[in-house]
């Protein structure tokens, strides 16, 4: 049973004006419950447009979005319900913080769900724990935080609604390597704890290679590849042709392969390559 499904989804911006632009064309895709999907594609390929359809923020120009088999744009109530079930963290979410305190900002979503005060408090603390926001920051103004902290608070604001599916649009853009890694770890931890479906949009091949189980590649508003990271990253040439690249590790593995070193060509994380190389050296991965 897929949780999220799109059928021939098409979106045209500014239709009928001289600035008309088709951002999505006939995108059909299924995301099963609990799956961890990475969405990649060059800038302007329609990733953000696509994810904004999944919780009913953008009405499709053509096609449908189904959540557990029901069209989310059928009526107003459904669309609102989809907002809470599918949590969407926008690109640069730190610019949407508005409350006087961090606590109140994280509580905005749960408050809109009309939860009780106790329940809200519980969810805020839980969400803050997931993203690594210490409770000592709760009474600060969001504007006083650093960029990375703001990002975490914004992500917590969505997690606090306990969505069944969590969609993150470039959550690591503009962060330092440690910040990126730690946010990705937080997301993985959230998924382990809740079993939520996760859709991660990213420019960084390294990021998605590290945690996604399935990769979907967008180009010019179409899905051009869909498969496991090993399958997708084995098509290095095709990826380069659409302005993407393979992770550095895959590149190294490919070069080694070309030099005659017998490592599997489908390495895409550091541990995989390390194990492959160690296996070559002496069989045992003793390091």
């Amino acid at each position: 049973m897929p949780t999220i499904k799109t059928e021939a989804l098409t979106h045209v911006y500014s239709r009928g004006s001289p600035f008309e632009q088709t951002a999505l064309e006939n995108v059909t895709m299924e995301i099963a419950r609990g799956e961890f999907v990475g969405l990649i594609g060059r800038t302007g390929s329609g990733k953000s447009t696509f994810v904004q359809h999944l919780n009913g923020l953008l009405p499709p120009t053509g096609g449908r979005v189904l959540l557990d088999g029901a069209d989310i744009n059928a009526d107003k109530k459904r669309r609102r319900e989809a907002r809470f079930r599918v949590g969407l963290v926008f690109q640069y979410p730190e610019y949407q913080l508005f409350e006087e305190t961090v606590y109140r900002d994280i509580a905005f979503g749960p408050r809109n769900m009309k939860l009780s005060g106790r329940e809200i408090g519980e969810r805020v603390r839980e969400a803050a724990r997931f993203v690594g926001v210490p409770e000592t920051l709760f009474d600060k103004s969001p504007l006083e935080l650093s960029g990375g902290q703001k990002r975490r608070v914004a992500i917590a604001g969505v997690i606090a609604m306990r969505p069944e599916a969590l969609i993150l649009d470039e959550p690591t853009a503009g962060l330092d390597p440690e910040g990126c890694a730690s946010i990705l770890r937080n997301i993985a931890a959230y998924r382990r704890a809740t079993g939520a479906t996760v859709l991660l949009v990213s420019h960084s091949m390294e990021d998605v290679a590290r945690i996604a189980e399935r990769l979907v590649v967008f180009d010019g508003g179409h899905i051009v590849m869909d498969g496991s990271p090993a399958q997708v990253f084995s098509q290095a040439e095709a990826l380069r042709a659409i302005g993407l690249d393979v992770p550095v590790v895959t590149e190294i593995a490919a070069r080694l392969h070309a030099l005659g070193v017998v490592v599997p060509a489908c390495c895409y994380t550091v541990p995989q390559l390390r194990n492959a190389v160690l296996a070559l050296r002496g069989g045992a991965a003793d390091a």
Partner: protein
Amino acid sequence: MLKDITLGQYFPGESFIHRLDPRTKLLCTVLYIAALFMAKFFISYALMLFLLVFSVAVTGIRPSAFLRGLKPLLLIIIFTAVLNVFYARGGTQLFSWWVFTITTEGLKTAFFMVLRIMLLICGTFLLTYTTTPMALTDGLELIMNPLKKLRVPVHEFAMMMSIALRFIPTLIEEADKITSAQKARGANFETGRLTERVKALLPLLVPLFVSAFRRADELAVAMEARCYRGGEGRTRMKKLCMGARDFLTIAGFSVLLAGIAVLSSLGL
């Protein structure tokens, strides 16, 4: 979307009119409007109408764009028409009831009045549809240049206007984005009582203002870093430059104005 409002003003193109200097277009629009106010009778109006239709055809912009622009003013146009029908006196009486009287003169005045308003509006649309806001500000600044002698801060006004124009689409886009982000967290901007709706705007307005101030601050620093210090001694990268086609167009419009003046004095 919100964005369509401002971007919809300019229709990119390469026509003769698009390529005219903004100063030419500004001047010709003024001449056209002056001629409109002088025109009194059929032949003059026919000439003005023909000129507009011809220009619209030259730009290659769909006429529906102009009609769409007229729509918000429909009420004013109808109001003017009705007022004129009943107010103007003279000619033969066609209809009379209580204080309402319709005469042939009234109908004629109303017709011309409506035509005049429509031509006036479409004429100015012709200017804004074919000129980017930036080009328009540049043109205005150059036309107003002589006022600098009177210590009017022309350059500063023009700079303020270009910055404002430059940031309108940016801020609208940002407002769109923040609205979406808050909706994703269940914000409700559409329903509720008035007080609730005003309160619901906070999650939009606070981030929007924060970001507007941040942008203003960054822009000011960026301008200072490049040694901006007002208009004094400042040169331009893109110099506006009038060519033969500009002088020809201005001459044409001047003749038109004179012609309409003569026609009106002849009662045509």
